[in-house]
């Protein structure tokens, strides 16, 4: 495992070494970005197919329906419906959000923001992307199987996911794909943690790191510890499916000596609960920084934000049981898990209050990254509050497996993370590609995303509270759900609207890539290290490794005399007259 150790590598010269098997963290970040955007589109299409089926059952999906489902005249059949919600969840979590937030921003921001020339292990970094790529191919290939892809839900609970519930090879390929993705994530995590610890620029203490880096670093730590837990789970599940073991088979299906289907749920959520923080922590970090940058004020209580995020990271490992209150867990355990879950509200409330403290009395600039960041504050607030209902045993037993859960987790780990990802993309695009994105289109994209997004997920909360179960194919056949049809329709129409507005983003992205205004070195006037170098940065990032002399959020200091309202991290902190 030999690495770069912060030396200048020779610049690659061929197309192959420059863009395909590149060792450059900036190129790998872009590879992850396109990978993530591709899967975001694919997962988004699946979401539309799901919503269409729920609101217009029996009607062919417009335009591409006949192409996708020729045997049912364009209508989504029930088995394909199960496959769609399974693959939607899997794709969005592992193949869209993870590569975008962790793969793209992690790779791009970590070395640049800590003043390093590359990751600690560039080759491992390259391998991490190609493992993810291979995993993506396996997953997409499973869609083409005769019996289709996995259809046991993204959680793949046995017995739905054993040979009894899913006889096709789709579920097996799902396991293989997830395992490969886990290998990729672990490689990335090893790299990120090591890089942050060993390659910070001279003078940069842990609390001088931007909060983005804190989020990514904590995420990497969780990844390294908990992704292998899921790895073990999917290996055993694969053995059950392929080799005839009975780890997760019980009762009649296990011939002698019983396995335990619920054990998989434990294994899944020991990984799964940290996973939701794995996804949200980078977004929290990005938002914590951007709120300060665009309020032209130091981040309120930056140190306590970092420590609160650390506390959430630690607590996140102790609460997984709240996903399983209805599995006949001992009341003593449910009470303990409930208490621990409620404890997470404390650090969450701390950094949430810090966010509000940051924008309080700031001279706020409503540029697109700020709009998206404020969007995160709003939707994460809603997502967090609805989490209280689900973390409480007495209300969870009623709400378990309803659309309330779907609404809640979409607010927290879909809406928040998506908006956080967009905020980061609009913010770092000038640095990544050397061109500005169109601000008007970006604002249209923001409102076109934000308003329908709340229509979708708040609608889901309401129909869930009204009693609509998850994963049902046709809500129209249940008399009790008839009265929810208008809200269901609102959700679907909002989804279509939101989907349509993403086209604005894609147009903006492609157009700006080639025709966008040339970006200056520091278009947003902020002081973190990546803005001290040209946009886009040269191959080795820094000709001279910078020396850090102050924190990342030195904005609006009244003692600044040089006509700027911010100072770079490489400048001595400006003090007032003693």
């Amino acid at each position, binding site marked *: *495992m*030999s*690495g770069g*150790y*912060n030396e200048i590598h020779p610049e690659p010269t061929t197309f192959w070494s420059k863009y395909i098997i590149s060792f450059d963290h900036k190129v790998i970040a872009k590879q992850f970005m396109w990978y993530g955007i591709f899967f975001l589109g694919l997962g988004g299409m699946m979401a539309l197919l799901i919503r269409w089926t729920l609101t217009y059952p029996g009607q062919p999906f417009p335009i591409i329906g006949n192409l996708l489902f020729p045997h049912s005249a364009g209508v989504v059949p029930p088995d394909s419906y199960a496959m769609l919600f399974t693959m939607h969840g899997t794709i969005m979590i592992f193949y869209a959000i993870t590569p975008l937030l962790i793969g793209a921003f992690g790779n791009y921001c970590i070395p640049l923001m800590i003043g390093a020339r590359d990751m*600690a*292990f560039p080759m*491992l970094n390259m391998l991490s992307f190609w493992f993810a790529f291979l995993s993506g191919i396996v997953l997409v290939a499973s869609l083409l199987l005769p019996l289709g892809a996995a259809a046991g839900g993204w959680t793949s609970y046995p017995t739905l996911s054993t040979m009894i519930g899913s006889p096709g090879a789709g579920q097996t390929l799902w396991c293989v794909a997830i395992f490969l993705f886990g290998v990729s994530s*672990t490689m990335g*995590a*090893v*790299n990120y*943690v*090591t890089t942050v*610890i*060993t390659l910070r620029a001279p003078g940069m203490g842990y609390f001088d790191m931007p909060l983005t880096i804190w989020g990514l670093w904590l995420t990497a730590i969780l990844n*390294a*510890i*908990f*992704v*292998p*837990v899921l*790895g*073990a*789970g999917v*290996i*055993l599940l694969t*053995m*059950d499916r392929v*080799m*005839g*073991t*009975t*780890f997760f088979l019980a009762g009649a299906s*296990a*011939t*002698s*000596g*019983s*396995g*335990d289907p619920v*054990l998989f749920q*434990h*294994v899944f959520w*020991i990984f799964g609960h940290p996973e939701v923080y794995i996804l949200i922590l980078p977004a929290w970090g990005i938002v914590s920084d951007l709120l300060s940058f665009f309020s032209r004020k130091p981040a309120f209580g930056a140190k306590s934000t970092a420590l609160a995020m650390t506390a959430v990271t630690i607590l996140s490992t102790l609460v997984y049981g709240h996903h399983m209150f209805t599995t006949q867990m001992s009341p003593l355990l449910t009470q303990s898990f409930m208490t621990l879950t409620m404890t997470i509200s404390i650090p969450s409330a701390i950094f949430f209050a810090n966010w509000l403290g940051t924008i309080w009395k700031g001279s706020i600039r409503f540029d697109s990254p700020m709009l998206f960041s404020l969007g995160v504050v709003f939707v994460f607030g809603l997502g967090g509050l609805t989490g209280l209902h689900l973390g409480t045993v007495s209300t969870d037993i009623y709400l378990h497996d309803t659309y309330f859960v779907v609404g809640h987790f979409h607010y927290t780990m879909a809406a928040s993370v998506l908006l956080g990802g967009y905020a980061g993309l609009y913010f770092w695009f000038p640095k990544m590609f050397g061109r500005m994105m169109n601000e008007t289109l970006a604002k249209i994209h923001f409102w076109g995303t934000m308003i329908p997004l709340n229509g979708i997920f708040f609608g889901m909360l309401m129909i869930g509270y009204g009693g609509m179960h998850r994963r049902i194919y046709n809500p129209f056949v249940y008399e009790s759900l008839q009265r929810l049809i208008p809200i269901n329709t609102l959700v679907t129409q909002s989804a279509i609207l939101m989907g349509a507005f993403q086209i604005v983003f894609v147009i903006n992205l492609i157009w700006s890539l080639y025709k966008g205004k040339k970006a200056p070195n520091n278009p947003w006037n902020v002081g973190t290290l990546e803005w001290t170098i040209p946009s886009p940065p040269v191959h080795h990032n820094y000709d001279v490794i910078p020396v850090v002399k102050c924190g990342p959020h030195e904005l609006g200091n009244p003692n600044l005399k040089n006509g700027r309202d911010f100072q770079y991290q490489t400048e001595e902190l400006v003090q007032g007259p003693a």
Partner: protein
Amino acid sequence: MKRSELQNNLAMTIALISAAMLFVTLFMGYAVYRSSAEAWPPVGMAHVSLTLPFLSTIFIAVSSWFCFQVKNLVAINDLKRANRNLNLTMLMGVGFMISQSFLWLQLKESGIYVTSGIFASVMYGFTWIHAVHVIGGLLALVYLKIVLRPKTNELLQKTINVERFWHFLGIVWFAMFMGMFVF
């Protein structure tokens, strides 16, 4: 400590924590199966004879000792003797795999098939997962053999990384031996 050493040690530690979590999960599952079983091994299944698992333990322990010597010899730059010890490490590693294969054969001959329920699942499944890692370890040893030359960059660091992984596999096996075969 040089930065490169720190990076390597740190990265290897994190990688080993990751790998350990995989096995910890397996042991957790084992604890659940074993504690919820009415009888272990289930009625009608005999205890697995300790001879072969014990032999495997000897093999992997001795190989770890040779591997330790490889590192010490690389540290004093005695590559010739290091190479000899590396060969012995690999030989013992292969010996471990052969011993494990006989263990699987023995299980099969005593009527315990992979499909024979949870006891068999644990016995075969967990030892297979460990064996796959041992094969990975053997490949790492082959890699070390290839780079065991005076001109290799950071040879000692590479040796230490491979050595640590090899010891890790020994420790995991020892935990399996005690938890699944002895007790």
